[in-house]
């Protein structure tokens, strides 16, 4: 257990360093005048002009050599200060708290919903590979994977918000507002989770210990709950936990469609506006969350699967 955690700790430090250096190199390699970009982010397209850009340049001291700026960022990081957004002037930490909170809420809801939808069907399909359910789920999963999220989202809004009037179409604030975007994400996830659990189930059902469980006279239900479920849970859990991370960073489409103030949306805006402290802060927090999530999965899998404890 200790080596696992110390590995993750080392990884966290590495990630922090890499994020800092890489985003720095890349943002400085970006074309376009930074002051103009920031001015556009600040004042909007009607008001961005040379005067605005000059004011931004003077205010922010953008002339600083790159290595110095990087040094300052790392030094501030040691003091746990992520700096201020060049566009809004707010502290990066405050912006991240607002956006990350919303993203997390959405991602957890989506993963939760997809766990309810995907694995049960997947296990059913995996118990009878090649059967009718199996083929049907393959088709369904492929359809869902071929549909872009914005199409799934719009279909859901048209059905659940416009036609039936059950859920709010977009916006945020109440729990009901979370459901539609979460469901949009969950359908795509469930499609994959369903296939993962189907394959895991198929493997487990075909394994020697599963057959042995049957021959020793256990009922189908008991074999499944004692030998099946645990073994299916490990890959499914590992997979879903990773999806959570992808979701947090990758849901920019759903955030845009549902007017949801998430971190993907913020990241896109930050890159467009060359808001370097925001980019670095966001990347850092996302990276560390990924490491944390991995550590949690490691621990959970240890719990569920006793064999791993020796490894």
């Amino acid at each position, binding site marked *: 257990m200790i080596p696992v955690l110390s590995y993750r700790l080392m990884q966290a430090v590495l990630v922090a360093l890499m994020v800092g250096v890489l985003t720095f190199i890349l943002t400085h390699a970006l074309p376009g005048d930074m002051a103009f970009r920031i001015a556009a982010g600040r004042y909007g397209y009607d008001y961005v002009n040379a005067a605005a850009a000059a004011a931004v340049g003077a205010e922010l001291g953008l002339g600083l050599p790159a290595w110095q700026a990087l040094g300052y960022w790392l030094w501030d990081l040691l003091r746990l200060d992520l700096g201020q957004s060049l566009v809004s002037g707010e502290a990066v930490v405050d912006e991240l708290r607002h956006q990350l909170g919303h993203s997390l809420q959405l991602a957890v809801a989506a993963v939760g919903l997809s766990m309810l939808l995907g694995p049960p069907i997947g296990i059913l399909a995996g118990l009878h590979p090649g059967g009718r359910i199996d083929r049907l789920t393959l088709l369904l999963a492929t359809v869902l994977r071929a549909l*872009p999220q914005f199409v799934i989202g719009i279909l859901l809004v048209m059905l659940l918000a416009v036609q039936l009037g059950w859920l709010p179409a977009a916006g945020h604030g109440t729990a009901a507002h979370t459901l539609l975007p979460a469901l949009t994400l969950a359908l795509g996830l469930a499609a994959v989770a369903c296939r993962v659990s189907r394959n895991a189930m198929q493997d487990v059902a075909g394994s020697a210990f599963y057959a042995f469980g049957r021959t020793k006279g256990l009922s189908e239900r008991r074999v499944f709950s004692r030998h099946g479920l645990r073994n299916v849970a490990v890959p499914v859990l590992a997979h879903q936990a990773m999806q959570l991370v992808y979701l947090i960073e990758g849901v920019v489409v759903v955030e845009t469609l549902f007017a949801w103030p998430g971190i993907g949306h913020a990241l896109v805006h930050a890159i467009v506006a060359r808001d370097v402290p925001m980019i670095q802060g966001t*990347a850092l927090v996302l990276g560390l969350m990924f490491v944390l999530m991995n550590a949690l999965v490691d621990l959970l899998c240890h719990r569920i699967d006793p064999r791993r404890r020796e490894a």
Partner: protein
Amino acid sequence: MQTATLVTPAAVTVERRLLNSRQRLGVGLLLALALLGFGLPLISDLDPARQNLSQILAAPSLAEPFGTDHLGRSMLARMASAVQLSLGLALLGVVTAAVPGVLLGVLAGWRGGWVDRCLTVLADTLLALPGLLLVLLLVAIAPGSFWALYVGIALVLWIEYFRVVRQTTVRLMVSPQIEASRLLGFGPGYILRRHLWPALAPVVLTLGAFGAATAILAIAALGFVSVGLRPPTAELGLMMTELLPYYHDAPWVLLQPITAVFLLVLALNLLAGGRKP
């Protein structure tokens, strides 16, 4: 940008068969798509960029079997051009991701020791970087270039192959068959060909099948936030984004690129799903 581990590497049966019926269906679908993309431009002079603003969002007809888009362009010509581009680039993206992923995965799993540790740390750390960030930055450095877009996406996707392949290789290397082959003095090439690849192929193919879709949908998603647009290029993902506002006026138009991606993913899946129950 979500990637998919669709196959648990356990119990991959090594089975050598000619194409079964599902795989034949997959090949058929792929050929049909390729025929549309590469064949149609050979026999007709349809121009995917020619507009007719008095004929926008026209329903399918004899003259325009697929209808027209929001600028009055022939959807048939655009679909052909898009399938050609997207098929090419998606497959390229998948190969770009799969080749280093598989090679490094085999290397790490086979050699073990510090090679394995270094590569794993590298992959884990890269994986921790937000993929969206990498792709957006790369696209911003080379604006409007599809190459940058696909290379960026491939850079994010290769780690998936690496992890899966490494895991599988580690397990296979201690299997009795490979031990035996090694004892009998067969070289690495033989072991790779005879033992590793047959076991890895279905996993890699399944990952690739969904990877192609992921690449196309990722481009659609980026287009949705106005990244990667370069008129008048026809690309399946960007067409979905461009045609979205007309989902109510002309749903059949929006359905066309989606159907093409669906058929592509289905075909690759059928092809990869050679695993017999």
